[in-house]
Each structure stands twice: as structure tokens, then as C-alpha cells.
């Protein structure tokens, strides 16, 4: 897909390549946030540092996708898969996808952990259900 990265967002994607989920943390208001920005969306602060997350959280919402419009070419063969919003234990919510096929047993509140997945030259922070 090769969406271009800025010098700020590249830090996130490079960390994924190294198997780490890193989010920015605002030193002015002491809050983490996602997605990467050049200023904190809570207070406008620009004293930001990158912190490694545990990569664990819960499913905040989900959708089993049966019709893949756009996206990676290979997706049409992968449906149904599950698009998720993850509530990270450390605070921010992320939009992501569960690895593998959609499973009817998925529900809001299920525990998940990050599962880095290689696709077309990118390493993507997908998630997997645990327990």
C-alpha cells in the first residue's frame, strides 16, 4: 500500500519493524496519545517523548468485514476478517485488525495483545485475542 510516512510518523513504523509498539507521551500534560503528531492533541504541548507500550488491551469495538473495498489486493481472499478498536491498557485507543479469520466468539471487552504482521514491506501492529 505504501502510504508515505512523515519524519514524525516514521518513528512509529520503524519501531513496529523492530517489534515494538511505541507511542508518544506529552511531557507537559503527562498523557500518551495516538496517532503520532507533532503536538499533543490534549494540550498542544510539543515536549513529546516516545515510550514503549506493553501492547496489551481490550477490544473496544469490532466489525467482521465481509466486503473488502479498497485496501491491500490480497484482502479479498481474506474476508471475513475483523476490524477492531483496541483500548490499550496504557490509555489511547488504536484502530487495528485481529490476525486470522473473523471468529463469531469475538466480543467487546476481550483481552488482546499486539501481534506484528508483515505485509507488502510494512510491519503492522495487528492484535490477537488472549485468554
Amino acid at each position: 500500500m505504501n502510504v508515505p510516512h512523515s519524519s514524525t510518523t516514521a518513528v512509529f513504523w520503524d519501531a513496529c519493524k523492530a517489534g515494538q509498539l511505541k507511542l508518544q507521551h506529552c511531557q507537559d500534560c503527562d498523557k500518551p496519545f495516538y496517532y503520532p503528531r507533532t503536538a499533543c492533541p490534549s494540550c498542544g504541548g510539543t515536549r513529546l517523548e516516545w515510550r514503549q507500550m506493553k501492547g496489551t488491551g481490550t477490544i473496544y469495538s469490532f466489525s467482521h468485514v465481509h466486503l473488502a473495498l479498497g485496501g491491500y489486493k490480497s484482502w479479498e481472499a481474506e474476508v471475513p476478517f475483523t476490524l477492531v478498536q483496541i483500548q490499550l491498557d496504557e490509555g489511547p485507543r488504536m484502530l487495528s485488525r485481529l490476525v486470522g479469520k473473523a471468529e463469531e466468539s469475538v466480543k467487546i471487552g476481550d483481552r488482546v495483545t499486539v501481534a506484528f504482521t508483515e505485509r507488502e514491506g510494512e510491519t503492522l501492529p495487528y492484535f490477537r485475542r488472549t485468554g
Partner: protein
Amino acid sequence: MPKLNQDVVIVGTGETPVGRLHGVSGVEIQAWAVRNALADCGLTLRDVDGLVSQQPYNLPNSGYCLTVAEYLGLRIPYCATLDIAGTATSVGMLQQAAWAIETGHCEVAVCVHGENSVTGRPKDTHGFALQIFAGGEEFEAPFGPPSPPAHYALYAQRYMHEYGTRQEDFGAVAVAHRNHALLNDNAVMKKPITLEDYMASKPIASPFKLLDCSIPVDGGGAVVVMSGKRARKLGLKGIRMRSIVERVTHNAMVGGVAIDELGLEPAAKELMNSAGIGPEDIDVAVVHDAFTISVILMLETFGFAKRGEAGDYIRAGHASLGGKCPLNTHGGLLSQGHFGGFLHTLEIIRQLQGKCGRRQVEGARIGMVSGGGGIFAVTSGMIMEGPAQ
């Protein structure tokens, strides 16, 4: 609170056929809608000195208002392109026109949107890429299909979890909209549907089925806005804009806020308060309905139904013609057709003008239009008042 001039009125509407307009370009559709709107109130292009246009989403170009003005041969003192997002833009265009008239830039402004988004779609594409609507592709495209249904579905699933909304409630929305569309000759969906048809329609992105999703069409609509002074001179009965609101919280799903943080609730309160009315005073309403969840959320946020009870409200017939407050009487994006949201605004104006024929809400005087854009990212709304019928 935004102040609206009490002496600016809406006097005419124009709509093109909707559906597949083969061989008609985007600018031709917009010009067609403008001509129809002017004819509706007995004006000609010579009377127009202001133009507000929303550019087509399929093939946008910069400076689109100039493209339309040039095509129509307009040499005018006020022209602007406006795109807030989705159906929120239509209310924004009326506001822009009212401000331009109020500040003396022009006296007669036409607002227009239209596009050949179905027949004019680039080859080998299916639907729109979400980045066209909502940006944020760097942190969205790698995970989901970059198209709207799955992203709205995330709000729908969460809403079911928080408020107990059921699949059948979404189905009630789909059926009610189809029933209204059957009374609109310019609606693309012509067949009645039942709850059983809805439940049997194919899955798209859970909890959404095919009949939860609006139907993309080509089409155009235009509205004529005028100073009250000019309208009185011409003997035209105008529709007043009593209150207007807009609230923004995010754009794409990656920035999507929690349901109780959405801009809908503060928008609804401000809209009603600034008009000095409540939901019980509204005779007819049109709300965003790109997906069935939108209607549930709007009804429950604007105070027509309690949280989790919009399905019951619809099944009781309150949102249907003859009910407490008929909703989306034209069939909406779900069953008339979806190209932006301007036909919503046209419908409320025509209801207040008493021009809706067999789907007319008898005696309609106070109307509400609410639009949305992005993934519940922006809410806009307007309360309008018609002359006593």
C-alpha cells in the same frame, strides 16, 4: 451561539433526477439543479449574484465554485466552494449564503451540490477510498478496508453494547425509509421491503447488512437564498432559518471519540435552545442516514426517543408519515439515494413550502435538518420555519 439574520429567507429548490445519469458530467448536473431551483421561484440566472458550491467527491478540482460560475456564465460579486464533510456541508452552504447576503456581498445566492459519483467513477474502482472522505489513511488503510461501512459499523457495534440497540432496530430504520421512498417518484429504490428482507440481506460489515447501507447515486440539488427585502418585493413567501449549529470532534475513525463525547449532544441542545423549541415542537425532520445507525443515534441524541428506544419509536410509527414527527420523508440516503446530503435540506424546505404532494406532512411549519460528516465527526443542524400554511 451563531447569530442568523432574521431577514434572509429560502425561496426555491431544484433537484435533478437521481440514479444513473449516463453521459452527464458533474458540472452539468450542478448547472441543471441551479436552473431548476431558479425556475421553482420564478427567477433567472440574471437575478443571481452569489454562488456557493460543494464540489463533486469523485473528481474534485480546486476552485470548483468558479467552474460552476463560469459554466453558467455568471459574473458575480460572491462565489465560494464549501466542503465541511458529507451531509454537514448542505447546512453549512445555507449559512454561508445567509452570511454573504447579510453582509451585503450579494442579494440572491444559489447553493448547489451535484455529482456523477456512480457513472463518473474512475475505472476499476469499487466504492470510494476512505481517504477521499476522511484522511487519516496512514493509520487506517493498513488495518481495515479504507471505506466507510466498516468504520460506521464500529460505532454501531459499540452503540449496541452501551445502549442495548438490537439488529431489529436497525431493520426498522431501513423499512421506514423504504416506505417513504415509495412515495417519492425521484427515489431509486422502488420495491417495498420487510424486516425479513432486511434480516436476510447479505452481511457487509457486522452488524451491518446490505440494507443498513445507503445507495450511491448520481444527482444534484440547489437552493435559492435571498434577502427578505428582495423576497417581499417579488412577493415570494420565504422559509426562515431560525437556528444553526455545527460541532466538530474528529474526522477519521482513527481519531474517533467515544459515543458520549461526540458533538451530537451539544449540537442538539444548542440547536433547540437557540430556536427556543424542543423536539415536540418539530413538525418534520430530516437527519443523516448514510447507515441505519446514524438515524438511531440522531433520534436518541436529539431527544425524539430515549437511549436504546429509537427502534420502538420507529416501530410505533412516530417517525413515519402520520406519526409524531415524520422523518426523512423523501426516503433519505438509504432509499432515495446518496450523493452528499443536499436532498435532505431540499426535502425540509419543500415540506415547509407545502410542496411534497402525497408525502406532505399536513400543516408542517417547523422543520429540522441535521447532517453529519466523517465518521460521526461533525454534526450540523438547522431549524427552519415556514409561513403558516
